[in-house]
């Protein structure tokens, strides 16, 4: 289980989040631009540090301000799919996916076997020699996901993984994404703007507003949040949105 209880000063407000994500659960994080969603993912990944608080995975602290523990990002074993995918432009599709195994010092034979398995599973084997920046948007998304999954992460973080795809591809990818993430059986957090992503990929959803969790509920309740998201000011707490306001 991933436990997050952090506080960090952002430019315009404080990010104060307390949440848990269970093993195998997909938590969808929704909210306006600049509300702190990506910052929260970066805190979990160790790319930024909170001012105070604690982040723990199965009781093992990744960050603890009290105990002065801060595990470096490279030692957290986290699969992170960035919004821009951040595929290394000078490497092929194969080398991008193999990167995380090479940093772990695996033998060439072991790297080859595992990369082949993942590339074939993602339907990327035929384009393995292409430079990562030369493939289509959908293929890039698959490469980024394969690169994050091949390291057998203990936590999965995905920052708007479908936003770079066109609408038709998004619909096709949602089911595949849910299946592949569920197969990992690790705590997963997905940041999205699209409530359709929440309903079809997630198990649970949180609405983040100016650094605080404003609403939480089951993912299948989220479509009823639509009005609330548009008209939060007039919606009474615990109203007919299906979720519970915090």
């Amino acid at each position, binding site marked *: 289980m991933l436990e997050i209880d952090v506080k960090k000063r952002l430019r315009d407000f404080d990010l104060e989040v307390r949440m848990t994500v269970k093993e195998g659960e997909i938590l969808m994080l929704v909210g306006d631009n600049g509300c702190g969603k990506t910052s929260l993912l970066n805190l979990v990944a*160790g*790319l930024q540090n909170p001012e105070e608080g604690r982040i723990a995975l199965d009781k093992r602290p990744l960050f603890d301000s009290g105990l002065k523990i801060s595990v470096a*990002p*490279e030692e957290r074993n986290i*699969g992170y799919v960035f919004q821009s995918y951040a595929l*290394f*432009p*000078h490497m092929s599709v194969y080398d991008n996916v193999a*990167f995380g195994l090479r940093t772990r010092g695996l033998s060439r034979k072991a790297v080859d076997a595992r990369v082949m398995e993942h590339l074939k599973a993602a339907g990327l084997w035929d384009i393995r020699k292409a430079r990562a920046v030369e493939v289509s948007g959908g293929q890039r998304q698959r490469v980024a996901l394969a690169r994050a999954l091949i390291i057998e992460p203990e936590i999965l973080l995905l920052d708007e993984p479908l936003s770079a795809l066109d609408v038709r591809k998004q619909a096709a990818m949602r089911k595949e994404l849910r299946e592949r993430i569920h197969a990992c059986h690790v705590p997963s957090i997905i940041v999205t703007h699209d409530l359709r992503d929440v309903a079809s990929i997630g198990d649970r959803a949180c609405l983040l507003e100016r650094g605080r969790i404003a609403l939480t509920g089951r993912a299948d309740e989220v479509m009823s949040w639509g009005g609330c998201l548009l008209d939060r000011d007039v919606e009474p707490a615990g109203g007919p949105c299906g979720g519970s306001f915090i």
Partner: protein
Amino acid sequence: MASNQMDINRLSERGIAELVDRQQESIGILSRAREAALKAALALLLIIAITFIALPVVALLLRSPLDTTFRSLYDPIVMDALRLSLMTTTVTTVIVVFMGTPIAYVSARFRYFGKELADSLIDLPVIMPPAVAGIALLMAFGRMGVLGRHLDAFGVSIAFTTLAVIMAQVFVSSPFYIRQARTSFEDVDLAFENAARTLGASRVYTFFHVILPIAINGLISGAIMAFARSLGEFGATIMFAGNFQGRTQTMPLAIYTAMQGDLDVSICIAIILVAISFVIIVLVKILTRRVYKNAGN
């Protein structure tokens, strides 16, 4: 009567339409003429600029026949200057790259106390007149200099040696590399670095396997510019290292010295420098085009 009135109206409408057409046509002719005049003025300006730059280079080649140039190549002053220049500029470029790369990376990625001051000091030699750089180096490392006097006590003398040539070249050329390298590192998206870290790469592994390969074309381009600046260095070298054939007399210094005796030798060295400069420009153009392509991707 009514039909007459209608005819008059029709005629006046046609007249107005023709008048508008003529007016628009004259406006069109005027704007076309203005555009043509502007293009002609720009073309003339370009021709003047190209002539101004190309004429001295062509004059060099015209003044010295090819056989005279080749004969002058074997003159000891040319051979010594060529050997010394290539040796010192190569050593300088290696030093600048090894010293400048970490400085440029730190400057691009980190904030620290006094960063603005450090960046300004690094850029200072670009705007500092070379003669000032030479005298400043002499005041620091010369026999009576701030540091030089202590080194002299141990029998180490820097001024007027080949080492002084290299130091003068490093001083004036390092900003050319560091500025270009800093820009290249800044252009590398931080997301690549973050992605590498989350995939288990240490900072050092990330630098050598992700950041450096992405920025490499910019770094090579910067190194070439530093090499070119070193090769053409004159003022700081003559002030700090002197002008001794085979020891501190680089090609620009040899041109200056030979001019007072044999102009053919002077022109021969100048032609060699023009040729090297041309190759450098072509290399930089190719590399910057490759950088642009990568950025476009």
